[in-house]
């Protein structure tokens, strides 16, 4: 237990010494035991020998019970200092002789033949045999103390040798342990350097290719990895910090579990007025108004963030100077890798500006709407007035016309008989002129109305429109041979009434200008596509027009024929152009005098083919 905490050097030396010591002691003990055994065996053998000799010599005396002779024999033992006592017993177990004669040592009781060690003495019993008959026993007691002395010397020598060996072992182990402990100590010192200085750039030096070398390598690798990860982490933290720090439009701060400010950024400084040095460590409740604090809002919000993961709300914020602003605050919990709550992040947006901006926008919107309404009302009123104006104008213009016509008619009735032919012709001219004027007024009125009416864009079935228009011209064409060539036309998007007007005007024109033809051919069809719109055409084989004057073709009241050639006010084509332009289309014509005319115009089809 104590051993466990001792330094490795000592541990190694101690273990080596213990090993060496134990081995030496065991060897020593073994050899000692051997030595003792040898010694004992020697003594026993010696005593046995002496015993045998004496026994042989004592047979006669024992047989003849000559205890004096036996005593003499035993006294020969004086020379042998080893044997301190002896005795002969007869076969009955009675003592015969003992040596020393008057020794204080009690006579040895008869034993079995053999030897027996006891209390520093050895007892050897030799039977006295004569003719294979045991006469008695000879006991010899040897003093083992000789052995002791001998052994002492032996032990001393051994001890010295042991001592020297131990010393050598100490020196050797001290030297040898370095091979293990040095690399370990090097590793240890590196580890200590790393942990003390938090310096993960140091590396342990590899010494040798054994397990410690492997350990060193692994250790170095670990340091490498830690170092690298530390760098990555540091870079990432740095990046994050830069990211957060420099944001000036949002407050991004960190709070600890109790709501104390743990980090601060530029936006927070800008909004709240505190520098990070001033504010770190303070509780975030100082950003709340007094009422909110009294109502326990700070704790409540933290609790919401803890339980639901986040809290979001628009609350009043208090700056360093005490002024208030409205902020949209989000408090989100931050978790450790293991999913444990270890703080909060709080992001605040100053929405005072946004609120103001929103209000401004709403106000502007309202203003705009009001203005639009006012303008629309104005326009509607203007339109209405214009409509009313043109209507009343046309009626006011028509009233005198009616009078002209009426009175001319009445004059003609009244003065029929008294008027000359010339006068009657004059009267006729008056009447027809007023009719013309009426027509002009009507056309102008229609033209202006058509320019102002709102278009109602819907799918228009051209085939139906054309069929209806042709039917409407039945009366005008009933006495003529008009062959209508029509083709199926796609559906278009447009104002139905106006599209009808276009076809009415074009077909009326076609009918009018083919009046002089024997066989009238009027064709209506599809001439292709342009810019995603379809090109329609109306072709007639009538009078045609001179392309040199084509630029006037669609002008208001512009005509390319004299009134005595073909009647008309010159508003039909102007209307057509007005309508097609309002449909975002184009209109143009091709013709040659007396070779007929083709009018082209584009409309938006409902399906893009």
């Amino acid at each position, binding site marked *: 237990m104590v051993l466990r905490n001792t330094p490795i050097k000592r541990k190694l030396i101690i273990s080596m010494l213990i090993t060496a010591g134990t081995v030496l002691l065991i060897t020593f003990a073994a050899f000692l035991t051997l030595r003792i055994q040898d010694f004992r065996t020697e003594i026993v053998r010696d005593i046995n020998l002496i015993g045998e000799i004496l026994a042989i010599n004592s047979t006669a005396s024992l047989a003849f019970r000559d205890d004096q002779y036996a005593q003499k024999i035993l006294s020969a033992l004086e020379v042998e200092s080893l044997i301190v006592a002896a005795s002969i017993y007869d076969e009955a177990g009675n003592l015969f002789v003992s040596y020393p004669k008057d020794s204080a040592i009690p006579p040895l009781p008869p034993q079995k033949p053999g030897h027996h060690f006891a209390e520093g003495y050895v007892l050897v019993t030799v039977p006295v045999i004569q003719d294979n008959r045991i006469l008695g026993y000879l006991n010899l007691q040897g003093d083992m103390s000789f052995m002791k002395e001998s052994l002492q010397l032996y032990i001393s020598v051994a001890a010295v040798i042991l001592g020297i060996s131990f010393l050598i072992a100490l020196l050797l182990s001290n030297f040898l342990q370095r091979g293990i402990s040095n690399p370990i100590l090097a590793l240890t010192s590196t580890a200590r350097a790393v942990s003390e200085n938090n310096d993960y750039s140091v590396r342990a030096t590899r010494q040798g290719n054994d397990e410690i070398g492997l350990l060193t390598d692994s250790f170095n690798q670990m340091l490498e990895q830690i170092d690298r990860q530390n760098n990555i982490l540091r870079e990432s933290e740095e990046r994050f910090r830069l990211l957060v720090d420099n944001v000036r439009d949002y407050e991004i701060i960190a709070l600890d579990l109790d709501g104390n400010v743990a980090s601060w950024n530029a936006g927070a400084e800008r909004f709240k007025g505190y520098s990070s040095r001033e504010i770190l460590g303070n509780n975030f409740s100082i950003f709340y108004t007094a009422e909110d604090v009294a109502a326990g809002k700070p704790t409540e919000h933290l609790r919401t963030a803890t339980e639901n993961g986040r809290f979001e709300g628009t609350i009043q914020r208090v700056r360093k100077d005490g002024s208030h602003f409205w902020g949209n605050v989000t408090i989100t919990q931050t978790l450790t890798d293991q999913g444990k709550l270890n703080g909060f992040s709080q992001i605040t947006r100053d929405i005072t500006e946004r609120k103001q901006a929103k209000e401004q926008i709403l106000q502007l919107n309202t203003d705009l709407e009001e203005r639009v309404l006012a303008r629309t009302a104005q326009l509607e009123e203007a339109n209405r007035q214009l409509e*009313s104006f043109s*209507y*009343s104008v046309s*009626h*006011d213009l*028509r*009233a*005198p*016309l*009616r*009078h002209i*016509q*009426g*009175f001319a*008619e*009445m004059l003609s009735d009244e003065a029929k008989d008294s008027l000359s032919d010339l006068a009657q012709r004059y009267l006729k001219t008056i009447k027809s002129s007023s*009719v013309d004027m*009426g027509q002009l007024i009507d056309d102008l009125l229609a033209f202006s109305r058509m320019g102002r009416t709102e278009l109602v864009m819907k799918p228009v079935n051209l085939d139906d429109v054309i069929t209806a228009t042709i039917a409407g011209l039945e009366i005008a064409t009933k006495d003529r041979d008009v062959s209508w060539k029509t083709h199926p036309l796609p559906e278009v998007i447009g104002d139905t009434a106006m599209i009808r007007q276009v076809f009415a005007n074009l077909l009326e024109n076609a009918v009018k200008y083919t009046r002089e033809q024997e066989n009238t051919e009027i064709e209506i069809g599809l001439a292709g596509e342009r810019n995603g719109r379809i090109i329609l055409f109306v072709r007639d084989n009538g009078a045609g027009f001179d392309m040199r004057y084509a630029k006037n073709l669609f002008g208001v009241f512009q005509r390319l024929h004299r009134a005595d050639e073909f009647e008309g006010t010159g508003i039909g084509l102007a209307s057509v152009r007005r309508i097609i332009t309002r449909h975002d289309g184009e209109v143009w014509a091709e013709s040659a005098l007396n070779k007929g005319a083709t009018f082209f115009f584009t409309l938006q089809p409902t399906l893009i083919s």
Partner: protein
Amino acid sequence: MEPLKKILLVDDSPEDRELALNALKSYNLANEVVALRDGAEALDYLFRRGEFSERPVGEPAAILLDLKMPRVDGLEVLKEIKSTPRLKYIPVVVMTSSREERDLIKSYQLGVNAYVVKPVQFQEFVEAVKNVGGFWAVLNQPPPSRIFESEE
């Protein structure tokens, strides 16, 4: 048979008045046509005021009323007529150049019997006048005078 009743014609345009008279005459209507020049005269006539206080008894069988007149316009006259017990049964035909919805609505709200837009073409104008006059003054049965007695 009751005596032929008068037709009252109210129009501020002398030409239109002359044309209308001519038209009615050519229809050979035996009715007498009283032509008045504006709303004030019409009311004076109907209520037997001013210069018309001595006019003969009896109400017209029909009133052809122009709307756009100075001083007192046609709608005012119509209102007066239709709110006076003695006069309200007299058929009033508005004859005006206005096709405006406003005028139509007001006229019918006031109880006009017919609304004719003066045709711009002379011939059509003549036809319209003849039709209107012919219908109201000849074909239509006017309310018997006894209806007025019960109102008084």
